[in-house]
């Protein structure tokens, strides 16, 4: 209940400072505007990025990820803390605004603040300030005492960020205290005789201050009122102007960063947005070499990073000790932009990024698994940046020797091994296999429905050819009319593109696309998630593509595939989500349904599964790169499987198979844990009847089938 007298009294306490407060307002707003304007300068110089389309979808994203804080709960403790702080800030925003005005405007009363709504608002904000204050205390304690690992700064990346973090947290706490004190004093003024306090929430921070102030003389209250106001205003504007100099800038930029987020993550950034393939010859330089080569949105990403460390915490490269830590890709770029585009001072010329803030190995270490992007609460994008940085290095000829050989082989032979094109389909002519399954090569449009796109590793690697054969047998079993491209097939070039060799990628893609069109098929099936991803997202104008796990799941559902019970039912299976099937394409359930349809199969989930799956080490060209690491990603993954209690790992990707098989040997766990591909397992367990064949033939084939599908190779 504010009576006119009280308002007058309160106002009188501030009157002497009105000019000062006004000055601070003007200064603060002006400074902030100037700072923001300066921060926008590099964005104006950055490359273009089209982010204005589909406003309703974008608004939806804002509602989900910004307002809804959708990603925050992935880290329970920190997430909860942040949600409270975020909600608190939102709630307090209106109050903060009214507080600021009060100091300069006589009789200012926030519209709607008197009356019931105003009372409720006041109570809510009292609690909000308290909660935010408590969160600050908890946050500081976390930083100083519990020290979560992901906040640590490895020596090579500079000094710790803890001091800065504590400084900011303390300032926010101070702001809350000033705000609470201000409200407390106001209430104290109104009830020096112990009148009931209607506007203070019980046990809130203002309420506690009020208790302390109950018997304070009026003049002291006046000074406190003035002081709290001043501290509030100064702290508010200090924070406002300080935030754009560090990680807290995300308070302002997060809304925009999420609004402008990339809507379809699976479309890799082209060399230049808006420049079609045919016009690429006119582009002088490919990729990101200097800071200005980044797009404005990428630069906004750098500003918006909150240094939470969740990306690096989930990055497999970082976990195994490779030089890459995504968090520092962002913060180093931010520091660079602050240094070369200072708010106070002149823009000074930059240098090439790789070789100064980034090392070559740092950029080559990324497997593009997407765990970082999956985790980031601010939807910061990483893969496009890494690919762009690689394009820049390729353009300059800076490619590690270990990668030059497979790239050269891809250019001359269409596969990274340098093997002859005519041998690409040899896997299908293996003697025993040929007797039970014929795989035809599609050389011209002859009415075949489906293309089985095999890709290079499955075609040429002695071990992975088994996946090709198993897949063919499954397709045969369900009566699919399919064929392969054979010698006309080239590498899908999925990693060629992600390693920055865009021109070679386009050449291979166009060759494949033409061959696919010439074959006249109407759909594509593949057992290779990298090929799947490429055909689905990197290739244009090709028929729709499915992964074999989707086909099997569907046919199991339709009753066309039935499984025999497992011979050894003591085994414990676990499914490893391949990055390009799971995280990138959200195919998590189909493979699991297939496994669960096998009678007697016991299945457990690893703690890191689905979109938190841990990359096996990477595929395509990554198999040729020689990283500096403390341990192999595959070994870590095998250990995770063992921890989950499994002794059989099921994968659905030939690269996962290579890495995990290798890792089992390196980790010395042969005989303790085994790995099998989904197709091999399915093929092994499929119930087969051969009603059309004569008895002897059927018996022969059954023998072949059992002999050629060795369990757990």
């Amino acid at each position: 209940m504010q009576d006119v007298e009280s308002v007058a009294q309160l106002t009188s306490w501030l009157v002497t400072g009105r000019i000062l407060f006004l000055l601070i307002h003007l200064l603060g707003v002006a400074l902030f505007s100037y700072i923001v304007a300066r921060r926008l300068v590099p964005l104006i110089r950055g490359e273009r990025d089209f982010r204005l389309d589909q406003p309703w979808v974008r608004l939806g994203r804002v509602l989900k990820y910004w307002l809804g804080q959708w990603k925050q709960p992935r880290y329970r403790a920190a997430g909860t803390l942040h949600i409270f702080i975020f909600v608190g800030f939102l709630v307090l925003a209106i109050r903060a605004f009214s507080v600021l005005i009060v100091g300069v405007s006589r009789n200012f009363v926030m519209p709607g603040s008197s009356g019931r709504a105003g009372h409720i608002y006041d109570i809510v904000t009292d609690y909000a300030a308290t909660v935010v204050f408590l969160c600050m205390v908890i946050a500081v304690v976390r930083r100083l005492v519990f020290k979560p690992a992901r906040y640590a700064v490895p020596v090579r990346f500079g000094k710790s960020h803890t001091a800065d973090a504590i400084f900011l947290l303390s300032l926010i706490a101070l702001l809350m205290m000033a705000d609470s004190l201000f409200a407390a004093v106001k209430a104290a003024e109104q009830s020096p005789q112990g009148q009931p306090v209607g506007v203070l929430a019980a046990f809130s921070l203002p309420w506690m201050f009020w208790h302390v102030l109950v018997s304070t003389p009026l003049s002291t209250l006046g000074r406190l009122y003035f002081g709290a106001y001043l501290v509030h205003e100064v702290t508010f504007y200090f924070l406002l102007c300080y935030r754009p100099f560090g990680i807290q800038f995300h308070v302002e930029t997060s809304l925009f960063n999420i609004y402008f987020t990339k809507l379809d993550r699976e479309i890799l950034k082209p060399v230049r947005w808006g420049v079609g393939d045919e016009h690429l010859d006119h582009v002088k330089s490919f990729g990101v070499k200097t800071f200005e080569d980044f797009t404005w949105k990428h630069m906004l990403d750098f500003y918006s990073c909150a240094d939470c460390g969740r990306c690096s915490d989930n990055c497999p490269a970082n976990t195994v000790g490779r030089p890459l830590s995504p968090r520092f890709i962002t913060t180093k770029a931010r520091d660079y932009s602050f240094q070369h585009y200072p708010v106070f001072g002149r823009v000074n010329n930059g240098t090439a990024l790789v070789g100064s803030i980034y090392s070559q190995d740092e950029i080559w270490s990324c497997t593009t698994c997407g765990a970082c992007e999956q985790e980031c609460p601010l939807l910061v994008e990483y893969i496009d940046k890494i690919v762009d940085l690689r394009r820049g290095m390729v353009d300059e000829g800076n490619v590690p020797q270990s990668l030059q050989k497979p790239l050269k082989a891809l250019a001359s032979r269409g596969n990274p091994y340098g093997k002859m094109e005519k041998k690409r389909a040899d896997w299908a002519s293996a003697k025993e296999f040929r007797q039970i399954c014929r795989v035809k090569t599609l050389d011209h449009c002859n009415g075949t429905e489906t293309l089985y796109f095999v890709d290079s590793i499955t075609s040429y690697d002695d071990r992975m050819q088994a996946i090709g054969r198993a897949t063919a047998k499954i397709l045969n079993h369900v009566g699919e009319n399919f064929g392969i491209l054979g010698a006309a097939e080239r590498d899908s070039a999925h990693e060629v593109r992600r390693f920055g060799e865009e021109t070679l990628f386009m050449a291979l893609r166009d060759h494949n696309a033409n061959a696919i069109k010439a074959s006249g098929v109407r759909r594509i099936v593949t057992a290779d998630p990298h090929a799947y991803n490429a055909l689905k997202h990197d290739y244009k104008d090709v028929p729709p593509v499915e992964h074999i796990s989707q086909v099997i799941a569907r046919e199991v559902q339709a009753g066309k595939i039935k499984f025999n019970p497992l011979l050894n039912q003591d085994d414990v299976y676990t499914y490893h989500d391949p990055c390009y099937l799971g995280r990138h394409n959200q195919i998590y359930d189909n493979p699991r349904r297939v496994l669960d349809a096998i009678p007697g199969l016991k299945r457990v989930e690893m703690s890191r599964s689905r979109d938190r799956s841990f990359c096996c080490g990477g595929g395509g060209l990554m198999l040729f790169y020689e990283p500096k690491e403390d341990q192999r990603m595959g070994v870590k993954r095998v250990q995770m499987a063992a921890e989950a209690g499994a002794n059989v790992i099921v994968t659905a990707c030939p690269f996962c198979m290579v890495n995990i098989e290798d890792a089992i040997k390196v980790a010395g766990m042969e005989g303790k844990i085994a790995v099998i591909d989904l197709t091999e397992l399915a093929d092994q367990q499929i119930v087969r009847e051969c009603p059309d064949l004569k008895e002897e033939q059927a018996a022969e084939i059954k023998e072949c089938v059992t002999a050629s599908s060795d369990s757990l190779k």
Partner: protein
Amino acid sequence: MARIFAYIAHKDGVASDAAFELAAVARKIDPAAAPTAILTGWGPNLDAACKNLGASYAETWKIANEVLSYPNAELVRKALQKVLPSNSIVLVAHEHFGIDLAPGLSVKMGSAFVSDVLDIAGVEGTGIKLVRQEFGGQVSAHVQCDVSSGAVFTIRPGAFRATESTAGRSLVVDKSGEVGSLAAGRRYLETVVAEAGDVDITKYNVLVSIGRGIQEKDNVAIALELADAMGAAVSCSRPVVDAKWMEKSRQVGSSGKTVKPKVYLACGISGAFQHLAGIKGNPFLIAINKNPKAPIFQVADVGIVDDILEFLPELTNKVREMRSTPAK
């Protein structure tokens, strides 16, 4: 047939093994030939080296000159130009000195040149048919050479068996005076010795040697484990060093170390001669390679067509088993 000369390298007073191989080549070209050995150098080491060639060479020409104390091919060539009669056939070992000396010598002599000869297939008048290899040993070729104005041939070390010949004294002829003063546009400074690595592979009786077939650095561990189980050392061929998977000190070959083990396991090694040139003393050579056509199978004693990445770990396990169970 023209006169045949063999340029002989020497070290510390001992002529290189090639001396006797080159004599065998000379006799294959012309059984009636009396080949002449030529040695250059300075001081007592040169004299000592010249003395022991009597078994194979009737005549030894000695060219002593202080500037030749270190064999600088540029200077040696000038010296040889002065003393060699025209139309001679000159034989040199195909190794780093021969590669440096021979092609230029053939031009200055106005004679034909064929390098890295493996065999003499036939001689007819002024035409000699020789055998060489191409494409890293994947295929052999016959080459016809017109020696009417002489020839320079470099001979692959180890391709010809050194002849056990009749005893005899070699007449040492001092040709130093005919050479005059020697100067060249290239001057020898010093030899930088390769850093001694952690392991001296020349001291081991058994070597587990890896080549390109090991495929990646991480797989080197497979070989190290086998070597550890066998009490052997791991050596390698050049591509493994080029790829920086092992140190240079582990390389066996013409530009690496020369080894004389009792047993040599060539794992994933194709068998290029530059590698084989580093293996002396005729060890028991076991070759394991995925490619049944690998040239190594021609020189190995025993061959296994298999994937070393699978074979070696199993072999290691068996060795460990053997060693842990006491002999019966």
